[in-house]
């Protein structure tokens, strides 16, 4: 009997598929389960790397849902600062599957987040998306009014979605200890007041991440039974960890959990695909060149390489052509990433 490896294609072997490959050569790394077409209405969400995904898809002519558009004429950088155009609604970054699930449960009336308004300097912020109004608002009532509008926008976006593209970003987060309400940032990072008796650090494990995503999927499928999912894992490392580990070890642990969950989901469910942007950026073939000098931000070259692979696999643009973008790609440090604000607390 020949070895079961004997008939495998070159892509199955490290020497032929990786050792001699240039980092920019991504052909064969991704074979979509299903094709995206311009007729699909796409909802995007996730950690800050997902902003690149949405922008690239829009630039390539895909129909990315935007239920909370910027006012006409607002400059792109300003729109981004206010959370417009980053995703299909102004939910800001949803770093964890726990947060994705919570937003969907709030939209569908299954939950009502505790501690909804945070204060800073006499201004008031939506604790669930504190970065989208950088100056905050005058009153808590205005925050509540905007949240109501926002949830209605998410509701419309969900009703329209044929495909959900979600980037899993973090496992670490902060919750209200009594209710389990999760927050995208620790209190006091942007607003709010940190009370160790009230807020609790969590580092979601594999079962938790998986359960939260499956619950989120159920909520979306309840209204869009034929919806399909494309998962990616953010290659952006943690800015800081509360795990007690070295941040590099903590990052590897978090990403391993997220990658394993994404792999399991894609292997198990026909409606879930996995796009390996994480592998493209972190690949040994890149030798770190897809990371900026801070070794954390993904470079424009890295984003282009990953997204070119995605678009080519979906027949949107040939692999050797530059990736079109809907709006000028901001500098890597300009991607809205609340998690990066933790850097301000380093010694």
């Amino acid at each position, binding site marked *: 009997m020949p070895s079961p490896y004997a008939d495998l294609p070159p892509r199955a072997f490290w020497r032929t598929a990786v050792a001699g490959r240039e980092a920019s050569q991504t052909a064969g790394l991704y074979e979509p389960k299903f094709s995206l077409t311009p007729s699909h209405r796409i909802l995007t969400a996730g950690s800050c790397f997902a902003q690149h995904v949405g922008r690239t898809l829009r630039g390539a002519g895909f129909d990315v849902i935007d*239920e*909370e*558009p*910027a*006012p*006409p*004429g*607002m*400059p792109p950088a*300003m729109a981004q*600062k*206010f959370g417009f155009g980053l995703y299909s609604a102004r939910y800001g970054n949803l770093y964890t599957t726990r947060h994705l699930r919570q937003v969907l449960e709030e939209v569908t009336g299954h939950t009502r987040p505790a501690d909804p308004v945070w204060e800073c300097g006499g201004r008031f912020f939506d604790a669930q998306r504190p970065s989208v*109004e*950088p*100056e*905050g*608002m*005058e009153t808590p009532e*205005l925050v509540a*009014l*905007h949240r109501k*509008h926002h949830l*209605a*926008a998410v509701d*419309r976006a969900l009703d329209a979605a044929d495909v959900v593209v979600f980037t899993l970003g973090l496992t670490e987060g902060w919750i209200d200890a009594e209710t389990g309400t999760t927050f995208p940032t620790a209190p006091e990072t942007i607003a709010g007041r940190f009370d160790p008796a009230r807020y609790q650090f969590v580092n979601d494990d594999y079962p938790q991440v998986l359960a939260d995503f499956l619950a989120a999927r159920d909520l979306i499928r309840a209204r869009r039974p034929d919806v399909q999912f494309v998962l990616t894992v953010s290659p952006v490392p943690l800015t800081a960890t509360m795990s007690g580990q070295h941040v590099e070890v903590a990052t590897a642990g978090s990403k391993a959990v997220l990658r394993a969950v994404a792999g399991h989901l894609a292997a198990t469910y026909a409606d879930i695909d996995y796009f390996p942007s994480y592998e493209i950026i972190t690949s040994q073939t890149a030798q770190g060149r897809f990371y900026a000098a801070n070794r954390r931000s993904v470079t424009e070259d890295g984003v282009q390489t990953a997204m070119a692979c995605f678009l080519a696999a979906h027949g949107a643009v040939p692999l050797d052509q530059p990736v079109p973008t809907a709006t000028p790609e901001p500098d890597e440090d300009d991607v809205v990433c609340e998690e990066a604000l933790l850097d301000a607390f380093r010694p």
Partner: protein
Amino acid sequence: MIRALVIGNSHAAALIKGWQMMVQEYSGKVELQSFATWEPIYRKLGFQGMVFGAHAATDLPHHSLDRLTDMNGTQQIDLSAFDHVLHVGLLVPDADLIGTAGRFDVDGLPDSGRANRLSQPAFRAWAHSFAQRPPVRAMMQGPWAQLGSRLTLLRRPRAKATLFDAAQIPSATIYGAAQDLIDAALTRSAAKAGVRFLPQPAESLTDHGLSDGRFADTAPRLRGDKTYTKPDLYHMNAAYGALCLKAWLDSMT
């Protein structure tokens, strides 16, 4: 005697006609000259030193150059020869303002129950960004800015109140509030550049901040004695021009 120049696009016509209503009042104090043409021609004119107009490299067909001469008796004007220059018709893109006023609610302003909502910080930031747009920036740098405080900028008038009907009061209010913010931002930008900004006279505005129709009837055209007869949102009449000129001249005399 102050040597003053009104320069600009078709919106200068209201001021040129308005001057005829007030020339006696300023007789012996102000000598006013004008240099104006239609926007498509005006935007192609440029500087050589402080001489503004059509130069050898100006990309304009003969018939446009002929019209420039026809309207002004010359194709160029030396701005350094004037004590004060009023640039009329600075274009702030109104389509974006109207689009926002028609589709968004804004905190603190009348509500229409729309799906899109802007906070006051977002609304202010958006409105202020109009003062950074290329047509505005161009007037606050280069040869124009070299005129310093001798240069005053007057915007194209706000849209007429007929833009919105009685059922669209919230939209009208948002439009007017945005224009107020833009004017404030333009005032600050102009001061920073060392030039001056003349806001649209309050007497010519409705309560909602749009142009009052009383100042829009029989808006003159640049050529001859024709007036705008087709529906026109922005061109104003000689009475409006006189208001603007008075505000400008009184600020310098």
